[in-house]
């Protein structure tokens, strides 16, 4: 590890993995509730489990992004972090705030939580993914500003590279678009309109800049390909991302009361959204094929290639499947959406964070790469989790197609709950595949504790 202060990333990565485990646990609870309706009812109703599942995802990815940035920025800037103390302070603030929020979700009814956390002052709660109490939202903003201050100052005092610029842009964009979560007009159409300015412009906008920057960084390190080559392709790919993705927001404006021209604009531009993901996959494979060194960390290379492929499949292909308005008319808000969401988040964001962890963690622990034994175990976990996710997506897609047919397309549409009963087989298969995913995750965590002969020492 070239710079001492990069070490703070270790805490962020450990927190990310712990919260990831929590997310999967609650995912399994929800999966069971799908087929065994009164499981844990009324102690943990589905809505609470789901809130914990999705919020843990967001928070662990944010921990991953921040850890990634703390590791990447000093190395790119060739200087120590502006303030290691601030980074550690914010780590604890964010972890404690996040933990308290989750405890709040589980311990008291949501309405009570809203009442005691100032939701009456400014009503922001109860909207999908933005369920956090007002004080948590404010906390997120404070942590984000402190974090951005820290890394921006680091970049300003050191070398400025394309990778660090793109990462900064992505992270600043993340903070700026989060501000729309504070805007909740009483008019539900406007509410939904701007809700997407946080949600869509995050995951199909600025987060992709973060994804691109983290991936480019790892590719430079593991392949030894010239920075100039990687950075110019990074720019080309993120250009395509934003060219298609920003207007692509329109694919959420089909059926929420917004004017009908969005059906055309949204369909046209989001139909092009797979292109940047495809370019990213081709880019990752090309760079690895043209590698100038054999980096001992093969697991990190595997994650880098995997994130390209899975992001393309999950976000690109599964997104395209239901993004055209005439198709989306029938698939909107069904298990098809859930299928796409799972693979896209895993492929694009979970995997890029795991890729960054895979590359950086051994170095922070004093070696260029883990022992062969540990890497083999990590690669097993890669395949188990990834294949499990592919099958979760396939089962949900099958459930979704049946749901769409029985509930919306057929001549005698059946009620929602009747349809849910009829497709429960696929929910069972999804749940068992979820168990396989959990096994993959357990192996992943175990791989950190596997010893074995030491690989080459870090430079």
């Amino acid at each position, binding site marked *: 590890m070239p710079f001492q202060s990069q070490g703070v990333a270790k805490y962020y990565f450990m927190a990310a993995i712990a919260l990831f485990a929590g997310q999967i646990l609650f995912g399994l609870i929800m999966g069971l509730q799908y087929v065994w309706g009164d499981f844990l009812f009324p102690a943990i109703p589905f809505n609470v489990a789901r809130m914990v599942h999705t919020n843990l995802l967001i928070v662990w990815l944010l921990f991953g992004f921040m850890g990634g940035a703390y590791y990447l920025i000093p190395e790119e800037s060739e200087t120590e972090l502006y303030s290691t103390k601030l980074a550690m302070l914010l780590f604890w603030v964010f972890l404690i705030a996040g933990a308290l929020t989750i405890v709040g979700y589980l311990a008291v009814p949501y309405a009570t939580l809203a009442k005691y956390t100032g939701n009456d002052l400014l009503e922001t709660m109860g909207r999908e993914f933005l369920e956090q109490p007002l004080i948590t939202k404010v906390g997120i903003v404070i942590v984000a500003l402190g974090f951005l201050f820290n890394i921006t100052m680091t970049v300003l005092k050191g070398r400025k590279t394309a990778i660090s610029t793109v990462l900064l842009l992505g992270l600043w964009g993340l903070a700026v678009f989060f501000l729309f979560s504070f805007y909740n007009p009483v008019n539900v159409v406007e509410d939904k309109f701007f809700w997407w300015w946080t949600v869509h412009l995050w995951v199909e906008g600025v987060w992709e800049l973060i994804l691109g920057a983290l991936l480019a960084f790892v590719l430079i390190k593991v392949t030894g390909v010239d920075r100039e*080559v990687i950075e*110019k*392709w990074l*720019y*080309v790919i993120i*250009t*395509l991302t934003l*060219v*298609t993705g920003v207007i692509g927001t329109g694919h959420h404006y089909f059926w929420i009361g917004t*004017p*009908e*021209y969005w059906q*055309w*604009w949204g*369909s*046209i*531009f989001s*139909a*092009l959204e797979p*292109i940047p993901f*495809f*370019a990213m996959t*081709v*880019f990752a494979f*090309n760079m690895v094929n*043209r590698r100038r060194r054999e980096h001992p960390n093969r697991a990190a290379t595997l994650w880098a290639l995997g994130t390209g492929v899975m992001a393309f499949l999950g976000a690109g292909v599964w997104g395209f499947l239901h993004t055209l308005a005439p198709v989306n008319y029938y698939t909107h808000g069904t298990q098809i959406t859930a299928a796409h969401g799972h693979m896209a988040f895993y492929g694009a964001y979970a995997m890029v964070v795991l890729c960054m962890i895979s590359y950086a963690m051994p170095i922070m622990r004093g070696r260029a790469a883990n022992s062969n034994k540990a890497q083999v175990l990590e690669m097993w976990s890669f395949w188990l989790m990834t294949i499990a996710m592919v099958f979760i997506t396939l089962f949900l897609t099958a459930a979704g197609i049946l749901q769409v047919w029985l509930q919306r397309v057929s001549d005698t549409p059946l009620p929602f709950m009747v349809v849910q009963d009829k497709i429960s087989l696929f929910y069972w298969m999804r749940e068992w595949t979820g168990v396989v995913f959990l096994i993959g995750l357990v192996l992943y965590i175990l791989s950190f504790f596997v010893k074995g002969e030491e690989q080459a020492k870090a430079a």
Partner: protein
Amino acid sequence: MSTESLALPATTGTAPPERRLAGDLAIWVFICAELLAFAVFFVAYGVARARHVDMFNTGQLTLDRNAGALNTVLLITGSWFVVQAVARLRGGDPGGSAGRLLLALACGGGFLVVKVFEYKAKFALGISLSTDTFYMFYISLTFFHLMHVLLGMVILALLWNSLRRGPGPTTLSSLESGAAYWHMVDLVWIILFPLVYVMR
């Protein structure tokens, strides 16, 4: 396209030197993306028109073909000046090149003026994106294109500025890139105008 270009540096040595791509590869990727977006938009127009032929034919009659034709002439003339600007710079005459860019900018400006009058007349009738599918496409396509004309003009203005301050080693490549972009804007209009204003 990505695969081929990614393999570029390895094959550079063997490629015949005369097959040079004018301008920067990055602008060509961008141009391809833009052309693809327009192409999908045009296909969507065709699909929508096939479903509402009468609506599209009626709507088309209300469009100002003269303004459209004038704008076609303006854009083609602008492109011609841009070609001249590249030729002059290649011939070692940056001053003349900058002058041609100004003339091209004037053509772009003329396009904007004509377009503003055309829109004003339509908006005065209360026509908007939500009027019907035909006007939705008319406004969307022409406005999307208009923004490209504006972007093209910003690029030409920046190039003019760099020529005025004295050309450097990369100026020719930049000018070629900007010219390619401007020709793309022109090309799209040459498809858009007959498609939306004329073809029945």
